[in-house]
């Protein structure tokens, strides 16, 4: 093509955009007389909508690129370029395009870096297996951990082979886990450093003239100790990584450090800790190795050695080099923030639980009534009227569980188990639970002042019916009669293409689902000992003959019949529509419902879908999405698409309502599957143990009525209460909300096969 033809073609491809013609002519100039014009231009509509500048850059670079890659590889190269553009901007994409050999071709040959997103699928369960489920993974510029998450670089290109870089990822993740496990961030300050509860690693490091240097030295000593720990805990990984650690030392870190004395030797010991006798080290590093390799070595040893090392390094004027690749960085502020977050969560749980406990404690009444009189803005109560005491262990019974008492106005009552556990967790986090008492009293007083009385808000939804339900008070072991008013409402369906978009998004999965669920629909099996059938049951025939010989009347059940097992299952899905689910209700749960409906329609089980929410006991609400015998029409689809977050989670009335709906349903198996994201909780005093016990009782009532309840939850703290509410095996926690649409039909399939 000549320049004019190329320009016109370009304009056709980017229409209706109308770029400057001289810019276009400049851009397409390299393509004149090119044989691969069509292949090149075919990528223009892919790049142009994302970035015009990038498209021009592409045209400038592509001819050079095609000397390294084939036409068939061109789309992959363009996609990789766009990935770099989206993560790093135009400059990153330009850099990527320039060196095709290094950036792309090597990668295609497997000779290159590893990317976190490519290995995240197995690296996350690997880290969770190491840590017992306690650690997450996230990308960051340099490796570190805050004790809740391990942060890893998005890409590692230290070695030329991808598998070495993947091994390096594993090693880095293992070191960050090790730091959490061996107590690097929370050393105990005993003995030499005193027993001050206020001591922290941060304060210790600040006591040095150069706290950043002290931090680096401490981290390096801990890296050495972590290496010995890994040698004991993960000997396979240590063996496998020996080669890359040696190469790291020889090629990456060693060069700079050979000029250094103490610090260089220390870093060498960190890299080659498992070859130490062969590696020649001198004092004082030999002493460090001996001390930190001991089984009982703790972070306190590193603190002591840090002081010695600091003096030595300061005296000799050595400067530390950049951290070792697998060591990462020390981010004490992130650790502190993560800990504070954890303290906050547990503190809030404790505050809630204690305020509910106080509300129902007769001994606390006078104190709370005083609070009420102080009014809504009263806030905190007198600190010395309510305190938590620990019962002194009897001599000889030191191993007995701690007994904790709540003492109010000199009357002591034992704390319930949930509160004891939370107090223990708070102590472990270094928090004094005392300071929560006064807040709890204040909060309980305010709740009491608010008391009952829900104002009804105007709703555009149609009211279908209103019923009252009892509420179980576990303290008095009895019901509060007709305590809750539940209104069944209709969702106003909005015009939305949500369902069709979801069907398109999950098209492949839906095809597979339909196949799976079709197989479930009819299970054929041979029924033996039938009065009639397709074939003779010889076992039964022989038995019959034997019975005849013995003088017994012969059986007439001598046939085998092939029968299709009719499934006789009815299920109600109960969906938590509370405001706390706002983060997830928009997409994952609605997509799950769509997939589920497709599966259920194929299967033929009878199913209904309801949502629930509400505020206070007088305004509990359920929302009709699909009745159990209603057809899956467009109206149902619109209702699913119109689901929005509501208010609170008073679960028990909704469960009782479902139980009453099941009364009219005749089926051999009746299932109630709840989808939830958190604990039952309402605006008033319906929280904590009271709410859990009421919900549990509602579930027990359902079970007594022959219904099997089951819960699917995304609440990370589900294990704290779900086993108690639903039973150990009647709930499942989904750790990744994005997986919910795929897993819901699978869960249903396993439950009912």
């Amino acid at each position: 093509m000549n320049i004019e033809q190329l320009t016109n073609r370009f304009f056709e491809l980017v229409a209706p955009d109308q770029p400057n013609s001289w810019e276009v002519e400049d851009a397409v100039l390299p393509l004149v007389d090119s044989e691969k014009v069509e292949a090149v231009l075919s990528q223009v509509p892919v790049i142009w909508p994302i970035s015009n500048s990038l498209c021009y850059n592409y045209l400038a670079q592509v001819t050079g690129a095609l000397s390294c890659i084939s036409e068939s590889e061109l789309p992959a190269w363009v996609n990789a370029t766009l990935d770099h553009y989206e993560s790093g901007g135009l400059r990153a994409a330009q850099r990527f395009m320039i060196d095709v050999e290094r950036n792309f071709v090597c990668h295609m040959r497997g000779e290159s870096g590893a990317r976190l997103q490519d290995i995240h699928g197995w690296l996350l369960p690997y880290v969770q297996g190491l840590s017992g489920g306690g650690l997450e993974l996230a990308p960051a510029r340099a490796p570190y951990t805050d004790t809740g998450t391990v942060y890893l670089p998005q890409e590692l290109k230290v070695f030329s082979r991808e598998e070495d870089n993947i091994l390096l990822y594993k090693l880095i993740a293992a070191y960050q886990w090790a730091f959490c496990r061996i107590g690097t961030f929370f050393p105990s300050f005993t003995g030499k450093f005193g027993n001050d509860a206020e001591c922290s690693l941060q304060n210790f490091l600040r006591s040095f003239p150069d706290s950043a240097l002290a931090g680096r030295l401490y981290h390096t000593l801990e890296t050495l100790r972590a290496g010995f720990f890994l040698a004991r805990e993960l000997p396979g990984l240590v063996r496998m990584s020996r080669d890359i650690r040696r190469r790291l030392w020889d090629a990456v870190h060693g060069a700079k450090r050979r000029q250094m004395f103490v610090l260089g030797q220390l870093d060498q010991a960190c890299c080659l800790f498992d070859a130490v006798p062969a590696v020649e080290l001198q004092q004082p590093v030999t002493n460090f190795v001996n001390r930190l390799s001991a089984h009982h070595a703790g972070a306190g040893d590193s603190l002591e050695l840090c002081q010695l090392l600091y003096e030595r390094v300061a005296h000799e004027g050595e400067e530390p080099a950049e951290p070792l690749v697998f060591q990462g960085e020390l981010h004490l502020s992130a650790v502190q923030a993560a800990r504070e977050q954890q303290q906050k969560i547990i503190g809030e749980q404790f505050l809630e639980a204690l305020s509910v406990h106080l509300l129902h404690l007769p001994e606390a009444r006078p104190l709370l009534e005083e609070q009420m009189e102080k009014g809504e803005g009263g806030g905190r109560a007198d600190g010395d009227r309510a305190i938590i005491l620990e019962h002194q262990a009897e001599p000889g019974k030191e191993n007995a569980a701690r007994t904790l008492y709540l003492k109010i106005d000199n009357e002591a009552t034992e704390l319930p188990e949930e509160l004891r556990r939370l107090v223990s967790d708070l102590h472990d986090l270094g928090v004094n639970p005392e300071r929560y008492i006064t807040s709890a009293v204040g909060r309980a007083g305010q709740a009491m002042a608010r008391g009952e009385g829900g104002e009804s808000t105007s709703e555009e939804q149609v009211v279908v019916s209103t019923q009252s339900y009892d509420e179980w008070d576990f303290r008095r072991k009895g019901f509060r009669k007709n305590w809750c008013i539940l209104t069944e409402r209709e969702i106003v369906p909005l015009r939305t293409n949500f369902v069709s978009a979801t069907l398109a998004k999950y098209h492949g999965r839906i095809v597979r689902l339909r196949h799976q669920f079709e197989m479930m629909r009819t299970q054929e099996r041979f029924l033996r000992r039938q009065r009639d059938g397709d074939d003779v049951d010889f076992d039964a025939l022989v038995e019959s003959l034997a019975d005849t010989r013995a003088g017994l009347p012969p059986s007439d059940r001598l046939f085998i019949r092939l029968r299709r097992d009719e499934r006789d299952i009815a299920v109600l899905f109960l969906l938590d529509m509370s405001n706390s689910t706002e983060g997830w209700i928009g997409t994952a749960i609605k997509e799950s419902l769509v997939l589920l409906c497709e599966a259920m329609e194929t299967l033929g089980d009878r199913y209904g879908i309801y949502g629930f929410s509400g505020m206070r006991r007088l305004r509990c609400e359920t929302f009709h999405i699909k009745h159990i015998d209603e057809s899956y029409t467009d109206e149902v689809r619109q209702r699913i698409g119109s689901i929005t977050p509501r208010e609170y989670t008073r679960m028990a009335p909704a469960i009782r309502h479902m139980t009453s709906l099941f009364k009219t349903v005749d089926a051999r198996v009746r299932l109630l599957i709840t989808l939830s994201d958190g604990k039952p909780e309402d605006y008033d005093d319906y929280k904590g143990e009271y709410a859990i016990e009421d919900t549990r009782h509602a579930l027990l009532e359902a079970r007594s009525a022959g219904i099997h309840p089951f819960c699917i939850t995304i609440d990370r703290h589900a294990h704290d209460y779900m086993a108690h509410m639903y039973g150990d095996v009647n709930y499942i926690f989904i750790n990744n909300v994005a997986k919910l649409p795929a897993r819901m039909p699978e869960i249903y399939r396993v439950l009912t096969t």
Partner: protein
Amino acid sequence: MTAKKNILAEHRINEKPYYLQTDQEVTIAEAAYHQGLPILLKGPTGCGKTRFMQYLAWRLDRPLITVSCHDDLSTSDLVGRYLIRAGEAVWMDGPLTLAVRAGAICYLDEVVEARKDTTVVIHPLADDRRELPIEKLGELLAAPPEFMLAVSYNPGYQSVLKDLKPSTRQRFVSLAFDYPDPDHEAEIVCREGGIEPDLARLLVRFAEMTRSLRDSGLAEGASTRLLIQVGKLVGQGIDIRSACRAAVTQSLTDDPELLAAIDEMAGSLFG
């Protein structure tokens, strides 16, 4: 009669089976035995329920007759049936009847797998009547004091269609089994798998890691039995990584990402 004696002799446990008590399960089971109460063992797969029954039978010096329950198990399979031998109709006791007559221990393994209309046949044996009606013989067989009924099942995440009816489960003294603590488990794996203690310790650590994957989609982690299997393969000369892959990883899951993660765990421990 001789044939019957032979059968019972076959079911005797003559050598002491290796079993490490973790809680009071042996004591409670013996107490139940002496009171004529049946026991129900529940726990994940491969955590020692069957081995416990063998140990209990040895301690009590009773034969142990085990029935693996399945969907096709009929009442005749348990109680007995007439067979024709040399032109004569001869009654053959089923395993349950055999156990009752001999005062043995009858152990119904994975009892939820049997159909509920089969399971109800054990009801009269499992309450204070302690009798077995054999309709075809017109006999009401009273169980001697030495007889014990035991059942087991895995209460893990399972189908609602397979569950023990309350009327069945409420007849039993229940013992909950779980994986032993790490030191005990390592001892068991070392002993039963025939491997060194250090390797056993690492295998237990491997199992612990897989048991933390419940939230990642793995319903049950590696059981003690799987670890013992690894040990046995290693004893046959299989390298540890291949043994882990064959005996544990591939047995646990088909999910590619979980397979990779578990394989990496094994690599990190064993190299």
